[in-house]
């Protein structure tokens, strides 16, 4: 399952910022600012035109859409904006098109043409399903970016590739990598397996996202500072403009978070105009860690869940066993923990991961500038084979009546096993659809068809024959199609039961 090996441009459409990179590094696309990235902002100017990037910062709040990527994650089709002509529901995808088009234009200006004939690799959260991926893909294509599903890369995979690209020596054995990607709005965790010497293949064994990251920590620090103010006799609620004071406190919280990444303590000075009098709060890294602790504990729970999900591709084990596997055992097989995203500059993140994984696991940033890792990894992704074993990149269709009728038996990027299935501890871990769910006819002849979205043909067999084109005896009662996380496939139809497997799934237990 190798994607095309072509020089490419990476486009990291992030929740807060959008970056473009070539294989040589980030291509500056900031406009009228000194930053190399473009803010992921889009809005409407007074004359009704759509503006994206820095220009959107100057439109009134009601006309501005922040964190537009999150709207795709939340499966929202429309967003409400307050235009001079009145309140209007605008299609989210239309605004994403404008943002991506602007990023493409700027990339070209920076020397990275992203027009026809080029290859743009676009990142997306590993937790996104097929529908979400197709939405972003559709928007990118409307923005004239040369992208297909096969050139969309899971963001944690890209971060892993950014790190792999800098490894001069081949470890000589498969590596298990956990990517901990904490940005402004979300925490993405992925468990990857890397194998192969000359050309390395990256497999996604598990990926999940948590909508709690940098913004949540800012809130926690601000709440902490509020308590400190009370200790020195300043009650924000009693101030003439408490809202203004809270906004300032939040800003100070963000700055303290950044500075405490390089220093042990940080003096916050109070503005007499805002807080009624001058004063200083010496906020320490230790206090920040205390404020961060509950959030990091939740993040570690998510890491544990990702490792449990990864486990199901490894052995044929029941969810009951997986749910009860001690965390010490789960972390044992991880060789490297890669830190990606701006939040990973905070020393406490690394410290927690080192505590969790122990001294035998290497914990380090995916890149010197972890916020660039996804973009750079996307640009270099063509050099690596990629396979998502948790959300496979192929559709399985069941066709009959000469293709005039069909059902989607498996839709690409659907998780094979849900988190709740593992948490509940059931003993039947697999993706399964039956004839009743699919409203199949009672009898008749059909055929399975496989549509790969990875850019390569899927090698899968059933009863020794190719899965693509496998004949099916239709039956609404007997039909059942299953994909197991370890790559096994089973079909039961009107004629019997057939077993097979996805050949591209590597046998992890045989490594």
């Amino acid at each position, binding site marked *: 399952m190798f994607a*095309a*090996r*072509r*020089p490419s441009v990476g486009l990291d459409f992030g929740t807060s910022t959008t970056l473009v990179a*070539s*294989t*040589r*590094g*980030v*291509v*500056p696309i*900031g406009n009228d600012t*000194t*930053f*190399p990235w473009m803010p992921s902002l889009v809005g409407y100017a007074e004359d009704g035109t759509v503006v994206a990037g820095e220009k959107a910062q100057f439109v009134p709040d009601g006309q501005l859409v922040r964190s537009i990527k999150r709207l795709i994650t939340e499966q929202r089709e429309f967003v409400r904006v307050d235009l001079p002509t009145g309140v209007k529901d605008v299609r989210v995808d239309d605004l994403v098109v404008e943002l991506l088009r602007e990023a493409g234009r700027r990339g070209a*200006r*920076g*020397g*990275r043409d992203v027009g*026809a*004939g080029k*290859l743009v690799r676009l990142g997306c959260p590993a937790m996104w399903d097929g529908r979400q991926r197709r939405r972003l893909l559709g928007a990118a294509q409307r923005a004239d970016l*040369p*992208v*297909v599903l*096969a*050139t969309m890369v899971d963001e944690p995979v890209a971060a892993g590739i950014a790190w792999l690209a800098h490894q001069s020596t081949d470890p000589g054995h498969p590596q298990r990598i956990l990517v901990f990607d904490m940005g402004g709005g979300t925490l993405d965790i992925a468990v990857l397996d890397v194998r192969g010497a000359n050309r390395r293949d990256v497999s996604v064994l598990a990926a999940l996202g948590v909508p709690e990251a940098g913004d949540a920590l800012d809130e926690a620090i601000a709440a902490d500072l509020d308590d400190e103010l009370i200790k020195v006799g300043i009650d924000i609620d009693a101030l003439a403009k408490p809202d203004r004071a809270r906004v300032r406190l939040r800003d100070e919280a963000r700055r303290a978070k*950044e*500075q405490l990444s*390089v*220093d042990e*303590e*940080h*003096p916050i*000075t*109070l*503005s*007499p105009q805002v807080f009624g009098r*001058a004063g*200083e709060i*010496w906020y320490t890294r230790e206090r920040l860690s205390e404020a961060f602790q509950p959030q990091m504990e939740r993040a570690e729970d998510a890491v544990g869940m990702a490792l449990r999900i990864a486990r199901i591709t490894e052995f044929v084990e029941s969810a009951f066993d997986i749910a009860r596997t001690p965390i010490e055992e789960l972390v044992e097989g991880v060789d490297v923990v890669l830190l990606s995203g701006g939040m990973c500059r905070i020393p406490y993140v690394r410290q927690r991961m080192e505590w969790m994984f122990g001294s035998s696991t290497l914990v380090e940033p995916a890149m*010197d500038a972890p916020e660039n890792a996804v973009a750079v990894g996307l640009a270099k992704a063509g050099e690596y084979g990629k396979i998502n074993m948790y959300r496979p990149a192929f559709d399985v269709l069941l066709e009959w009546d000469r293709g005039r009728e069909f059902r989607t038996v498996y839709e690409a990027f659907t998780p094979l096993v849900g988190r709740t299935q593992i948490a509940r501890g059931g003993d039947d871990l697999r993706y399964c659809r039956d004839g009743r769910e699919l409203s199949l006819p009672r009898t008749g002849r059909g055929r399975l068809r496989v549509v790969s979205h990875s*850019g390569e043909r899927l090698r899968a067999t059933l009863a020794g024959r190719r899965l693509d084109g496998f004949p099916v005896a239709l039956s609404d009662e007997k039909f059942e199609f299953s994909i197991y996380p370890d790559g096994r496939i089973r079909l039961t139809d009107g004629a019997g039961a057939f077993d097979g497997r996805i050949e591209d799934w590597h046998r992890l237990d045989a490594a």
Partner: protein
Amino acid sequence: MTRPGRPSRALAALIGTDPCAAVLRVLQEADAAITATDIKRALQAAGGPPMDKRSWGRLQKRLRVDDHIVVEPGHRYRWVAAPVTPPPADAFEQIARAVSSRVKRAHLEAVRRALGDAPDDVETTARQRQAVLDGVRALAELASEVEELAANQASSRALIHRVRSRVKSSGLEPIERAGDAATFDRRRHEPIGPPIADGAPVIVVRPGYAWRTPREDVLVARAAVQE
């Protein structure tokens, strides 16, 4: 593209004499990225014979190196009016893939490195400009921070701490502290006024700074001292 039933006469004439030119004409008329199947269908619709695998293979090789043809993901071919000129590094990677089995890896690496260092392409210029901007931004942030601290009536301890913390983010480490006593060291100290002997007691007038990176340490400025 050429629609079935309405074949272009010029295309029909080309198929027999120059199949490659015929394919280029199909792609030009298509005005979109199309697959090999689409191309073959268009040729047949114009009166051409069905194309066997071998003939297509020969044509495909010529198409892939034609300056007006770009191959997009999904093996789709697109005709572009202006030949696509890739950045030198991308062009080299394509050449490297084609000849990798016949050239020493070290030679390819040498050219790759040279291209990576080449200063004359747009991307490098953009990156160099960004490096300057990063420096200017750091300076502006420091200036605004100092002004904010002054307006907030910050103590000198807080002010110095914040300034040092800010420059530390850029890898700058202070040498000495203003007002402290020290013994003169010509490697770290710059005398104000007449020369000072090593080991002589001095007062630090202004701190110096060293820039530390994983690759090197650079002395930006020595601390200004006076006897």
